[in-house]
């Protein structure tokens, strides 16, 4: 059974400060292999900060974070090893604008994983098929729509065959008519068994895909629950108010 395996991502008593500002307070979270976790919560509650700690884009000051058996510390090699096993998708896509779509996808496989350009291009084309834009391979990111760019970004994050994917509000910067195509790709990825941690306010997606919902407020994990319970019978008053606001309107 899945739950017997050690968690692939584990945060334990994690604290972080920006100067005097206590942004993460005693965060504890376990993510099993193949689990889909959706994180939500009000703006400024520390959602981005938390998932960015998992691949060390932000440094935590106390507590421990273990990813795939490796503890995040000051060892640069360990950090780079973890980053190779953790893909990340950003709100603002962050594609490399000076490289073509294909080059965006082959950069890390060639430079980090040591693949030959031909191998890397094959892998990249397969991924572009998966996100349904193989015909854009030769274009530059600036020539694509937002939805296409985000799908390329997802493909790029997959190019090192990560074990975990982090999504930080992947659809928030998109025009409404493009949200669907990105969520479709994410749903397909979920059904293939990828471990995913998504910060998103797309509640329909969360309900359909999430194994676990996490609600954060003021730097704390306030509630962790199965989606059915989370949406229909939230235990915490703050969760209830938050859900009322974003679903109620």
């Amino acid at each position: 059974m899945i739950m017997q395996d050690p968690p692939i991502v584990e945060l334990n008593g994690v604290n972080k400060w920006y100067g005097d500002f206590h942004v993460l307070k005693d965060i504890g979270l376990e993510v099993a292999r193949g689990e889909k976790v959706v994180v939500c919560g009000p703006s400024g509650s520390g959602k981005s900060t938390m998932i960015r700690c998992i691949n060390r884009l932000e440094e935590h000051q106390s507590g421990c974070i273990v990813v795939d058996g490796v503890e995040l510390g000051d060892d640069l090699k360990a950090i780079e090893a973890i980053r190779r096993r953790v893909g990340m998708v950003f709100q603002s896509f962050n594609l490399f604008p000076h490289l073509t779509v294909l080059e965006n996808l082959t950069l890390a496989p060639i430079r980090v994983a040591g693949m030959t350009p031909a191998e890397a291009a094959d892998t990249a084309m397969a991924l572009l098929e998966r996100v349904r834009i193989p015909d854009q391979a030769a274009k530059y990111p600036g020539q694509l729509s937002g939805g296409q760019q985000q799908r390329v970004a997802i493909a790029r994050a997959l190019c090192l065959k990560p074990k975990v994917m982090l999504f930080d509000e992947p659809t928030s910067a998109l025009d409404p008519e493009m949200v669907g195509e990105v969520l479709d790709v994410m749903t397909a990825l979920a059904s293939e068994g990828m471990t995913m941690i998504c910060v998103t306010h797309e509640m329909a997606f969360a309900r359909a895909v999430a194994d676990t919902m996490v609600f954060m407020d003021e730097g704390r994990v306030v509630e962790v629950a199965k989606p059915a319970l989370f949406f229909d019978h939230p235990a915490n008053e703050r969760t209830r108010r938050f859900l009322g606001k974003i679903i109620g309107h």
Partner: protein
Amino acid sequence: MASLWSNLRFRGLLYQVLVVGAVVALGGWLVHNTLVNLAARGIATGLGFLGREAGFDISESVIAFSPSDTYARALLVGLLNTLVVSGLGIVSATVLGTLIGVARLSGNWLVGRLSTVYIESIRNVPLLLQLFVWYGVVTSLPVARLALHPLPGVFLSNRGLVIPGLDWSQGWLPILDIPHLAGFNFVGGLTLSPEFAALLAGLTVYTAAFIAEIVRAGILAVPKGQTEAALSLGLSRGQILRLVILPQALRVIVPPLTSQYLNIAKNSPLAIAIGYPDLVAVSNTAINQTGQAVEGVALVMVVFLGISLALSALMNWYNKRVALVTR
């Protein structure tokens, strides 16, 4: 008439005609005046002097030159010297400036501070003064026999800088020609005179300070998300700088970099202060001997204009190449 006067097109045209007329009149008066004065002093005009024997020697040259060669060849020697020192200056200032610009952004406090001190002190001291300092440094180096020997094949003495060169005389492939000390002097390799070394060092160090600031601004103009995306793919800091940041920073860097390159070329005539025979120094000598200042100065101006335009064109072309493709 009143309606014609209030017509914007007509007014615009009229002003242009008046300005062109004034410029032509002023130019004509200057030319006439100069010709009359030169004739009165019995100074020949025209470019005929270029074909005559120069009669003076030039201390260093990349092509063969002797006093019996023509003025034209002497000026060519000067031009080549200008091009060599400017070209090498551009390359070395770019390398040094990029390193210092990157160092200034480094997380390492000491490295960052040191680069700031370098930039602020070098930028704020006149280049001419710095050239005198470099010349002083180079000429007070030890004699050849006691030359500094920092790297294999590199000697630094009061005879200048000696570095390994390429020997093309043995057929198709060049042979590395490593200099060595024989008696009181060096044999083989390339010798850069103290004047050349001082000028190159001065231009490089001075311009690198400006280039460092340009590079820094260019790097800061690249959104932070680019670094984060690259980090999340497991790329190292060095790879990110090389493959992601600098290629994008170039868009911002190239236009101001162009004016720094032009500055190197335009600052190179300061060579005259330390006795490096660049184009301006040679043409000065020619002017003193022939009295044909107008032609000499005009020639130099045309040449510098040509160098600047060529550099600008090259950089514009490069700028178009590094521009990002968008919809």
